[in-house]
């Protein structure tokens, strides 16, 4: 459990954020200048602020008692926005800089190097690396310290698809295997949702919401922040079976809070078609769907329910929970077993759309991107 209540003042800028975070991974989301990086610096012990920070049973800082564990003794790993690789050391030396010389986990170094695809780069100096490669070295270096808390500031920027997946898996495995708690700052909602749906939303140095992503849609303070960044739907699903010939994978949706089938969708044994995912059956995945890719209709499209012969489209019924109108667009929050957000212009909406009405959400297989 990480618990903190921190206060930091600087002319024209302040951060007052608190909360308890029992989950292993928390995403931090907010506009530029909201105080996300400052929060990470306060937690890491790189800035002194007022308040209290407790990690597990260790009080890292408490301004009331004057306690403050220095940064190098906190066992908090940080991946900074800039890579901050040591230019006088090669990749291997950078990676092992903070690693435990003895008593470390056997094979961990090799696993990190392979997971981040750094095998051929170990003798390279940082200036010889691409942006994505340097990012991976920064992440690997922090992971190899086996931190109790890992603070990631835009860790996946500049990473290509394979490296991004590898890095995401590695962070997830550290959280699961070694109990590392992770705080992830990113402007890219997809990157956050690939690891967690638990979000701390920050604006103007204040926490305006701290909850599961889909539940934050009901939070009037957090919703504008999420909307301003361009919203996405995150769908947690489990791979059921794949049809490699048709390049389609059928996935079962999971509920927001624990992997059981989402009530409405599960009852109807609703399966979603995604582009082919080369993963074993039962693997849990996060799929991302843009609100603009959902078409709302008043009635189901009959041609879409022909099993394996059906077109490459999905449809799911749901009930309108909220209608949020802006100047030229309308945002609909729909309860379809999972919360879905659909965005449309006024003239493409079904007539008489109101809260409580049943609608059908239609989206293409290719619109579902596996994060």
């Amino acid at each position, binding site marked *: 459990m990480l618990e903190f209540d921190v206060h930091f003042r600087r002319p024209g800028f302040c951060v007052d954020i608190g909360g308890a975070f029992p989950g292993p991974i928390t995403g931090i989301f907010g506009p530029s200048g909201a105080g996300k990086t400052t929060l990470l610096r306060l937690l*890491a012990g790189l800035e002194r602020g007022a308040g209290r920070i407790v990690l597990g049973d260790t009080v890292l800082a408490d301004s009331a008692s004057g306690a403050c564990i220095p940064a190098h003794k906190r066992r908090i790993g940080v991946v900074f926005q800039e890579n901050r*690789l040591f230019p006088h050391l090669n990749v291997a030396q950078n990676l092992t*800089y903070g690693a435990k010389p003895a008593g470390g986990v056997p094979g961990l170094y090799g696993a990190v190097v392979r997971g981040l695809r750094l095998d051929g780069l170990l003798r390279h100096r940082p200036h010889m690396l*691409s942006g994505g490669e340097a990012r991976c070295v920064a992440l690997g270096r922090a992971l190899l310290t086996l931190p109790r808390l890992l603070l990631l500031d835009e860790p996946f920027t*500049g990473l290509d698809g394979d490296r991004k997946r590898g890095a995401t898996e590695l962070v997830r495995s550290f959280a699961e295997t070694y109990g590392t708690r992770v705080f992830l700052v990113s402007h890219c909602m997809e990157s956050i949702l690939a690891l967690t749906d638990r979000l701390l939303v920050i604006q103007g140095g204040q926490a305006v919401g701290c909850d599961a992503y889909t539940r934050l849609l009901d939070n009037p303070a957090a919703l504008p922040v999420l909307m301003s960044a361009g919203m996405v739907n995150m769908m947690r699903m489990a791979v059921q079976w794949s049809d490699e010939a048709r390049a389609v994978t059928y996935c079962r949706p999971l509920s927001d809070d624990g992997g059981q089938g989402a009530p409405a969708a599960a009852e109807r044994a609703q399966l979603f078609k995604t582009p082919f995912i080369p993963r074993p059956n039962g693997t849990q995945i996060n799929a991302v769907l843009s609100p603009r890719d959902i078409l709302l209709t008043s009635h189901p499209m009959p041609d879409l329910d022909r099993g394996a012969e059906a077109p490459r489209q999905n449809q799911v019924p749901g009930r309108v929970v909220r209608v949020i109108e802006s100047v030229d667009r309308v945002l609909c929050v729909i309860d379809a077993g999972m919360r879905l957000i659909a965005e449309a212009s006024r003239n493409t909406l079904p007539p008489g759309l109101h809260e409580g009405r049943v609608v059908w959400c239609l989206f293409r297989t290719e619109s579902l991107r596996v994060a």
Partner: protein
Amino acid sequence: MAQEHFGLTSPEISALWLSVKVGLWCVGILLVPGVACGWLLARKQFPGKSVLEAMVYLPMVLPPVVTGCLLLFLLGRNGVFGKMLFELFGWQFAFTWMGAVLASIVMAFPLMVRSVKVAVEMVDGNMEEASRTLGAGPLRCFLTVTLPLSAPGILAGAALAFARSLGEFGATITFAGNIRGETQTLPLAVFSQLQVPGSENAVLRLAALSIAVSLGAIALSRILESRLKRRNQNAQESDDA
């Protein structure tokens, strides 16, 4: 007539050797306090910092003879501390080659500190922060990050201090005297030869020697400075990427 080797007379070789010896001792002794003081001024804020800075740089603006006089008052045989050091340990600095080293140290210290301060300031503080988050305490952070990254600047400072020691005249002649074979360094030898009518050739030889050794030290300093710049550019590129 003194015996000649490589076109140099024995007193000239002795002066050259003594100059190099004094320069090396000066740099060797200066290195640790120079680096410590430069790092302190570059990285720390504390009360009295500007006073310390003024004291460190004072010998740069003070007439060297005055510095020599102060050394004499403090560390001369009858000086405030000199008398005590002689009685306790039998140490005597005034009018010995170690006195020449001491005079060089005092005169070269500001140059060394200034170089180190600039070099440490050029080290990206973010690297030190990263080192701390990787579990390095202040000493390990200094030894593994700050020191290697500022090393070319520190070495350039050492080269400058060496060159300053070679050229040191006023404080040395005041504090250590001009004793042939004991405290007579190259500048003092030039000065002595100038007093002898018809010794223009010897003066020119000594001047050429001084120029050659000084140029060597400055060339070394420039090479190391350019290495520092290149390395910092590489670091910048890797962070921009």
